[in-house]
């Protein structure tokens, strides 16, 4: 349970300045909009978001408040609100909140409002928020974050891979040599955190170790890919990892990279943005690459670090206001891209039509074309839940950290890859069955 004091109160009351503007009747009729959002990796973004929300509230005579929730507390707070049947009017998740579809309005109306200005919903958003069973959108997605490989160019150049690893074999070979020769371990997150979740779900997916199929049936461990992937991860850890990888908290991989204690990691670009602010020299040495080439025919692919999904609870009292707010928020996508330091890729390309140019001319990029590695990110980023949609079952697997727990049991020597995969598959089956019966 997250205590209220843990929330960062950013923008409380929009009416502090507005009573002089509003009439008495308007004040009496003034609606409220309480927003909960996950704490962005770039804190300045949340400050900006609060100001935008406040300004929107002033324009629409709505009293807006924003509560920022640490990422690791988001699921628990959302669950508490749905159990209680009360809470915020808008709840913004960093992942698809499919588990909560029974408590969400149909966000198709939001997509329709936005479509008039910015076009149809993109596949990444559609597959992240559409519920195939109900035929409704359980959330509204407006931005996402790609997950490129980020590596220490200087270090990888010493093992003949100045462009970093491009394949799983290259990652294993280079990372091992870097630890052996220079004591520099790999910085992939293997913990029950957002970073660990995305990293490990990506490693499994890119080994074709899919969790669920498009109909929600469990695929995991129905072939050899799961054990194969687990053995690969075990090799990575044994040959090039560090004990800290198993105990990092949120953003532990980012901190390790910023401290120069890791050779490479998989993360949103807030990592290198933080380096640009704190240590430009270090930032210049951290290069980006698209994700690794997967095995078993999977191509170059990585799951999104963030899929920003907003939910209007169906028990909320201000659904019309919340819906309008979400639709209008898309107008600010361009500013959001900038305030997030380029982390937030828009779901609606028309809002940042010059994205490719911006990536190639990023004023902070060192080397100059660093961010062009992201220009095709939408092509190599499928939705969480792939090859299916982000279903309630998949997202429960995600949010229960089943995958990091499974991997850790192998890395700690508690289970063999075979046993761990079997156990995880059984747990997935329980989850899938439960949701099929809902």
């Amino acid at each position, binding site marked *: 349970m997250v205590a209220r004091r843990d929330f960062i109160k950013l923008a409380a009351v929009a009416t502090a300045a507005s009573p002089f503007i509003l009439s008495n009747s308007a004040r009496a009729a003034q609606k409220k909009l309480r927003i909960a959002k996950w704490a962005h990796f770039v804190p300045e973004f949340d400050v900006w978001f609060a100001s935008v929300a406040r300004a929107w509230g002033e324009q629409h005579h709505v009293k807006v408040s924003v509560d920022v929730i640490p990422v690791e507390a988001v699921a628990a707070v959302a669950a508490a609100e749905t159990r209680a049947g009360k809470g915020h009017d808008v709840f913004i998740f960093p992942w698809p909140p499919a588990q909560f579809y029974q408590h969400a309005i149909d966000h198709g109306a939001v997509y329709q409002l936005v479509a008039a200005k910015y076009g149809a919903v993109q596949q990444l958003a559609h597959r992240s928020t559409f519920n195939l069973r109900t035929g409704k959108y359980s959330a509204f997605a407006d931005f996402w974050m790609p997950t490129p490989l980020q590596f220490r160019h200087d270090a990888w150049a010493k093992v003949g*891979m100045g462009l970093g*690893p491009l394949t799983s074999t*290259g990652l294993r070979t280079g990372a091992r040599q870097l630890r052996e020769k220079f004591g520099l371990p790999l910085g992939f997150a293997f913990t029950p955190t957002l970073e660990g979740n995305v990293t490990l779900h990506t490693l499994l997916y890119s080994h*074709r170790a899919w969790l669920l199929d498009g109909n929600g049936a469990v695929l995991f461990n129905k*072939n*050899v890919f799961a*054990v*194969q992937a687990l053995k690969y991860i075990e090799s990575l850890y044994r040959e090039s990892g560090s004990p800290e990888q198993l105990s990092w908290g949120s953003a532990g991989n980012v901190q390790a990279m910023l401290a120069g204690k890791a050779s490479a990691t998989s993360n949103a670009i807030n990592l290198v943005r933080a380096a640009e602010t704190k240590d430009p020299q270090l930032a210049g040495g951290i290069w980006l690459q698209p994700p690794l080439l997967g095995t078993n025919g999977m191509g170059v692919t990585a799951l999104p670090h963030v899929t920003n999904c907003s939910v209007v609870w169906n028990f909320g009292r201000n659904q019309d206001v919340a819906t309008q707010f979400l639709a209008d928020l898309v107008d600010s996508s361009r500013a959001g891209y900038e305030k997030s330091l380029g982390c937030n890729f828009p779901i609606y390309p028309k809002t940042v039509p010059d994205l490719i140019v911006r990536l190639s001319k990023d004023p902070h990029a060192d080397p100059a074309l660093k961010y062009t*590695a992201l220009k095709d990110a939408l092509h190599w980023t499928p939705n969480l839940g792939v090859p299916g949609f982000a279903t309630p079952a998949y997202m429960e697997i995600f949010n229960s950290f089943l995958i990091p727990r499974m991997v850790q049991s192998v890395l700690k020597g508690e289970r063999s890859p075979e046993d761990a995969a079997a156990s995880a598959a059984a747990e997935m089956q329980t989850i899938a069955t439960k949701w099929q019966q809902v």
Partner: protein
Amino acid sequence: MKNSTVHAWLYGVALALAGLPLAMISAPAVAQALIVNTGNFNPPPCDYSDQFYQDNGVDPTQVIGRFGTSRLTGPPARSASQVNWVADPTCATNDPDRRNFRILATTGGFTDNGTNAPNAFISILGFLNNEAAFETTYTRLAGTHDITIANSNNPRGISMESIVSNFEAYAMVKQRLPNGQFATNPCATDAASPLAPPTPCFDVSTVNTVYTPNLRQDWRFAQNRNAMDGSDNNCISNNPTICGPNAPTVLSDSPFGYFCDDLLGMWIVTYVWLTQDPANATPACQAVYQQLEAENGFSLDGGPIIITPNDTDNTLEGSGCGAEGQLTTGDGGAIWLICPAIPDPRNGAIAADAFLDQVFLPNGQPQNPTMTANFVALQTTGQFPGDGDGSVP
């Protein structure tokens, strides 16, 4: 259109080929393409110029076994009198990005465009086995603007190495060792599958190990991987007929097209192997191998031929009866190929003195007669047999 006429034609070609060794036209030291059919508007393949290699991020001095410089004879040529390339002054005239060495060795393979037909024809110009072959810096004034490679990125802001990672060529190296043992992994520790013993292993320590005589079956090329087969499970178009929930799942509009982005026609080599000896496999893998053998025939190792992505990814690898992997810098073997696919092999692209580089059976017959028939028809008529697309009839 697949009709009995086409079948009969192919059968006839196959029979003819079965009875005779492939005609070897002795190439002179300097030659011009001998094009025998009309409407020959597709020039035959030539090596790239040094400048074109450099413009596209590859140091030509690092290309191993570069046609026009080395490998005049020997594999893929099958006889001492056959050369793999000839000097040809028309190359640079037809295409200023080429140098005047025309490639006769035409390697056949299975395409990944959904038909799985043996109708992909490429020219293996050379090999790379080290990341150092990719330029990190380069500048050339081209007309009014510079072509530059900076921090390994080309003028479009992408590294060639990154582009090439999207295009896989699947090599199936022989696993049956001279002593009769069946090697269930490559001799490259980091690429080896954890599902099979690391030894005995098959050699991948030099680029020679992917020369055709060392292959158990013909290549497969994913030149259309990101454009058509949807294997990245990604689709970003806002057009619902392309990417909507009810759109055909095979459609995809992903990054990098082989013919428009990968200008050197490069591939990353993905080695595919069986993790058990087909002659001594578990019942489960025996069933898998037998299924594929029934569909595709036998490789030179006695196991199945693998043709489609489904064969590889699901049937074989999904059952643990096969595996795949890439090599890395230091392994010594071929990591990347420079072997551009012929965009349109019709209408003159297969010259009369070209020869087909494909896998042959011990009795001298081609392992895939349809591939042979396609090649011969293209060479002699400029068209696929029966005006088709070279698919298996």
